[in-house]
C-alpha cells in the first residue's frame, strides 16, 4: 500500500472511531450493571455484561407509557406527513401552474422557523381547544417539522419516475389515478417508505415541543428531559441508549436515500 493511501485510510478509520467509540461506551455503560457505572477508573471493557440497568430503566413508573406515547406520536407523524406531503410532492413534480414557486418558497421558509416559535404559542391554543397534553397535539407539531421534508423529498422521488412511463400508461388505457396506482406508486414506493421512516425518526428524536406540549402524556424524550434532575446516571444512560438504537436501524434502512433526503431536499 502506498503511504498516501495508508494515510487516507487511517484518517477515515480515525473519523469512524470518533463516531463509534462514544456510542460503544454508552452501550457498555448501559449494559455493564451498576458496577460499571460506579467503577473508577473505567476500562474499555465492561466489568460484566448485565441487564440490571436496563431492567431498572424499564421498571421505572411511566417509562413504558412514555415509550408507547413516543411510538404513537411517531406513527401519527409518519402517517400525516406522508398523507399531506405525497400529494403535494406529486403536484410539484408533475404540474406547471401559477403559484408553484410561491408554494415552494413557503415550504423552504418553514425550515427557518425555530421550533420554539411553533410550540410556544400552540401550547396556549391547544389548552383552549382541549387537545393540550395529548399524543395528537404533539404529532401535529412534529408533522409540521417533518412535512416540508416529506413534500420536497417525495417531489424529488416522483420526479425520478420518468413522465413518459405515466404517459405510456395513459395511452394504454389508464386514467390518471390508474396510471399512478399501476406505474408511479410501485416505482416510488421504496423512497416513500424511506421518507416515512425519516418522519418517524424526526418525531422520535424531538425534545422541545414534546416537552412543552405534554404534562402526563410524556413522550420518551420529554420524560427523560423533565426527569433529568431527579434521575440517577445509569437511568439516563439506559434511556439514551434506548433512544439511539432505533435511530441506528432507521439510518441503516434509509441509507440509499440519504442524499435525496438530506442532500437534495436542501437545495
Amino acid at each position, binding site marked *: 500500500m502506498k503511504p498516501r493511501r495508508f494515510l487516507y485510510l487511517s484518517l477515515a478509520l480515525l473519523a469512524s472511531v470518533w463516531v463509534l467509540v462514544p456510542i460503544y461506551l454508552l452501550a457498555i455503560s448501559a449494559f455493564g450493571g451498576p458496577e460499571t457505572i460506579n467503577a473508577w477508573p473505567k476500562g474499555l471493557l465492561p466489568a460484566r455484561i448485565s441487564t440490571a440497568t436496563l431492567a431498572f430503566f424499564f421498571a421505572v413508573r411511566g417509562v413504558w407509557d412514555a415509550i408507547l406515547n413516543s411510538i404513537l406520536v411517531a406513527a401519527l407523524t409518519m402517517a400525516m406527513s406522508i398523507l399531506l406531503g405525497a400529494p403535494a410532492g406529486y403536484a410539484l413534480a408533475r404540474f406547471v401552474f401559477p403559484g408553484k414557486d410561491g408554494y415552494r418558497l413557503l415550504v423552504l421558509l418553514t425550515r427557518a422557523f425555530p421550533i420554539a416559535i411553533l410550540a410556544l404559542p400552540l401550547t396556549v391554543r391547544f389548552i383552549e381547544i382541549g387537545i393540550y397534553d395529548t399524543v395528537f397535539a404533539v404529532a401535529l407539531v412534529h408533522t409540521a417539522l417533518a412535512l416540508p421534508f416529506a413534500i420536497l423529498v417525495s417531489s424529488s422521488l416522483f420526479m425520478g419516475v420518468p413522465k413518459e412511463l405515466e404517459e405510456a400508461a395513459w395511452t*394504454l388505457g389508464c*386514467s390518471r389515478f390508474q396510471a399512478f396506482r399501476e406505474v408511479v406508486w410501485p416505482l416510488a414506493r421504496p423512497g416513500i417508505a424511506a421518507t416515512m421512516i425519516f418522519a418517524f425518526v424526526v418525531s422520535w428524536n424531538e425534545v422541545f415541543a414534546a416537552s412543552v406540549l405534554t404534562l402526563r402524556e410524556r413522550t420518551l424524550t420529554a420524560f427523560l428531559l423533565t426527569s433529568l434532575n431527579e434521575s440517577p446516571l445509569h437511568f439516563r444512560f439506559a434511556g439514551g441508549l434506548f433512544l439511539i438504537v432505533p435511530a441506528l436501524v432507521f439510518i441503516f434502512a434509509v441509507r440509499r436515500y440519504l442524499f435525496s433526503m438530506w442532500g437534495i431536499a436542501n437545495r
Partner: protein
Amino acid sequence: MARILVEDIKKTFGKFVALKSVTMEVADGEFTVLLGPSGCGKTTLLRIIAGLETADRGEVRIGERRVDHLPPRSRNIAMVFQNYAVFPHMTVFENITFGLRMQKRGSEEEIRRTARWAAELVHIESQLDKYTGQLSGGQRQRVAVARALAVRPQVLLMDEPLSNLDALLRLEMRAELKTILRECATTTIYVTHDQVEAMSLADRIAIMHGGEIEQYDTPLEIYRNPATLFCGGFIGSPPMNFLEAEAVAPGRWRIGDFELAGPAEGARLLLGIRPEDLEPAGEGEPALVGTVQVVEPLGSHLLATLRLDGRLLRFAGDADLPLRPGDTLRLRPRADRLRWFDPESERAVRS
C-alpha cells in the same frame, strides 16, 4: 384502422409559438412521417394527437370521431416513446398485456394469445418472463412496439423510436419496423429528425419548420420538387445547392457568366440544383466554372466542394474522377432537374 384529420391546430408555450396553424390529413392505413429539426413542433403535434398535450385551438379527428376533448385512454391510439418507456417493474409479458388488462379486453386466454402474437411479431417471444431491466436497448424498443400493437390501436404514434439506438441497430430495426407495420397496416404517424429514416419508412412525409408544415408529399416528390428553400436544404445529404440568378431577358437567366433558360417572370431568383444533378461539361460548352476546394472520396461516389464567384457549390460525381484541390472544374446542370425559388417568399416557382 382509421384516418386522422388535424385541422387548424395552434399551440403556444408561454410566449413560444410551437404550432402556428397546422392542418393535415393522414389516410387510412397510411404511414406518415413528421420530419423537421428540433423545435419545429413535430413532437408537440404528435402529443396533441395522442392527447398528452392540449391545443389552444383546432380539431383532431380519428376516424369520424372528434377526439380533442378526450383523454388519451379514450382515443383508441397507442404510442411508442423515444426512451421506450417500458415499465421497469413489470416483466416483458406484463408490459405487453398492460394495455389489454387496463382496458379489460378479452378473457385471460385471449389476452395471452394476443401477447404471444405481438411478441412473435417483434421476435421477443423468448424473453416474455424477463424483467425489462435485463434487456438491451433494442429489445426494450421491441417490447414497446409489441405493447403498442397488442392493443390493436386505430392509430399508432411513434416519437423518434429509433433515436436512442446505436447506428447499426437503428438500420436493422428500421427495416424490421417497416415489415411489421406493413403487416399490421395500422395508420401510423412517426416523428423523426433523421431524413434517411423518414425517406425509407414513409408513404408521405410532412416537413415541419417553425411550427408549420412546409410540404406534405411522397418522399421522392419532396426530394425532386421541394416546395420551399427549407425543404430543399433539409432533405438530401449534402443539401441542394442554391445559386443566385439574374434575368437577362424574359425566360433567360444568368449565373456569373453562365446563361440558361428559366421561368418567364421575375428579376432575381434562386436556382436549386442537387449535387448529383451537376455533370462535368465538355470544353467550349457553356458551364459553371469553379475552383475545387475540398475533395471527399466516399467510395460509392465522390463529393467535391467548389468555390464559384465567392459562393460554395457541392458536386457529387463519379468516384474515379481525378480531382485535386486547386483544379478548375467546369460543370453543367441537368436541364430537367433545375428548380427555381423566389428569394423573397422562399417558395418554389414553376418554370
